């Protein structure tokens, strides 16, 4: 088991945004987290990254208790988050963004990795010396994903990776996700496109209003009528 979350509670002041949630992520699996706006998905990922304080419960990573570990050490351990809303370093160049993605890694191989990312997302090569903030929304999203991959994560936390991406690129991102899984990476996925994310996942959790309401294999949830109604749907 790569990730074990026990009875996690996270609060902003008096409001508990995540309440007593337990979940686990098998090594090498893709696990999807779905839930409506404001359910607490981002909060949960941030708690896993250690950037917001935890009120209760604990987190085990590869058996080690990391509940109180500081964020930079978690990154060093291999827990990488691609944050919601991209958060690129707007004033730094695209290349520098990629370089800093590999901050906790030994220097060797960084250049090769950058080349690989640029091959995947050619815009990152084209605009390599432009400030990241001048990119379009979707281009920034590609940069954010590439930057996350630069860190060689063990556990990748993706928060809405397809946000603002054109359909073709969304497709590509899901291809990357499956490809990464084949390379042995473990992925926890929060995705607006629930249909596609369930399609690539092994297991899924549904949270609503900060609490876990449903879990099961991805296949099982895909045929759950409640899930279909609110998260998958057929047409608008």
């Amino acid at each position, binding site marked *: 088991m790569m990730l074990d979350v026990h009875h996690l509670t996270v609060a*902003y002041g008096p409001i508990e945004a995540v309440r007593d949630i337990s979940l686990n992520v098998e090594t090498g699996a893709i696990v999807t987290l*779905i839930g*409506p*706006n*404001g*359910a607490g998905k*981002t909060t949960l990922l941030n708690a896993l990254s250690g950037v917001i304080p935890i009120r209760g419960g604990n987190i085990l990573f590869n058996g080690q208790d990391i509940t109180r570990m500081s964020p930079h050490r978690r990154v060093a351990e291999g827990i990488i988050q691609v944050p*919601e*809303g991209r958060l690129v370093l707007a004033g730094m160049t695209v290349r520098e963004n990629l370089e800093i993605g590999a901050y906790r890694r030994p220097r060797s191989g960084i250049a090769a990795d950058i080349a690989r990312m640029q091959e995947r997302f050619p*815009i990152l090569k084209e605009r390599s010396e432009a400030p990241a903030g*001048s*990119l*379009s*929304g*979707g*281009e920034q*999203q*590609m940069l954010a994903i590439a930057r996350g991959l630069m860190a060689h994560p063990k556990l990748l936390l993706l928060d*809405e990776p397809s*946000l*603002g*991406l*054109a*359909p*073709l*690129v*969304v*497709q590509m991102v899901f291809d990357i996700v499956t490809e990464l899984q084949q390379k042995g990476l473990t992925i926890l996925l929060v995705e*607006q496109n*629930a*249909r*596609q994310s369930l*399609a690539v996942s092994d297991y899924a959790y549904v949270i609503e209003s900060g609490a876990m309401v449903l879990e099961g294999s991805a296949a099982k949830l895909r045929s759950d009528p409640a899930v279909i*109604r*609110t*998260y*998958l*749907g057929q*047409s*608008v």
Partner: protein
Amino acid sequence: MALLEIQNITRMFGGVCALNGVNFSVEQGKIHGLIGPNGAGKTTLLNILSGMTPPTSGNILFSGKNIHMLPACRVASLGMARTFQNIRLFPAMTCIENVIAGQHLIASRPLLPRLLQLPSAWRQDHEYEEDAMATLSRVGLENRAQVRAQSLSYGERRRLEIARALASRPRLLLLDEPVAGMRHGEVSQVAELVRILAGEGMTVFLIEHNMSFVMALCSRITVLNFGQVITTGSPDTVSRHPHVIEAYLGVDKSS
């Protein structure tokens, strides 16, 4: 009748040509979609329409009036409101305060009656507040009214931004990726809202990458690629356009 006419708009950023001779028009009372690959120039076009960025060349007619040189606040006062792709709320204000601030163009709130403590001032405040509350409930945020914008989740922020844009009762509403970060159920709610707005006579011009949303909602769609219009047409024709499929849609595997 065309409410908005975009004539030969070009925009350069240093060496990058974000828009190159864009021409099309948006009909009064319709929902018009703008799609295209990442970096095609959609947001740039929206910025030009709303007066946030001047075009390098070209004209924009808004109900017959040339607006391409007007500052953003003047454009807005002609009845155009917008949302931002990367969401720009008033973070320290509560949700309802955001909407009240959005009423700027329709709420007069004169100073003198206030200084004299006339009851009309308070009555007015009360009315505007109720109006703001109604707008909030249109986007499903009525029970978040007293929460600060900065503590909303991503999807909630998007909706609050729409509410704030609606607060000024614009004739033309520009939405940049209104349903980004929303799941099926929530997307339907926003779609429903946009439909109602169009039914009330508002013209909506929106950018979105969620194809089922765009296709179901828009009566006309313009496709941009590399700063140029590939085609403008009905959802059906657009989605079957080979260039559009090649450059943008791809072959959808999941449906």
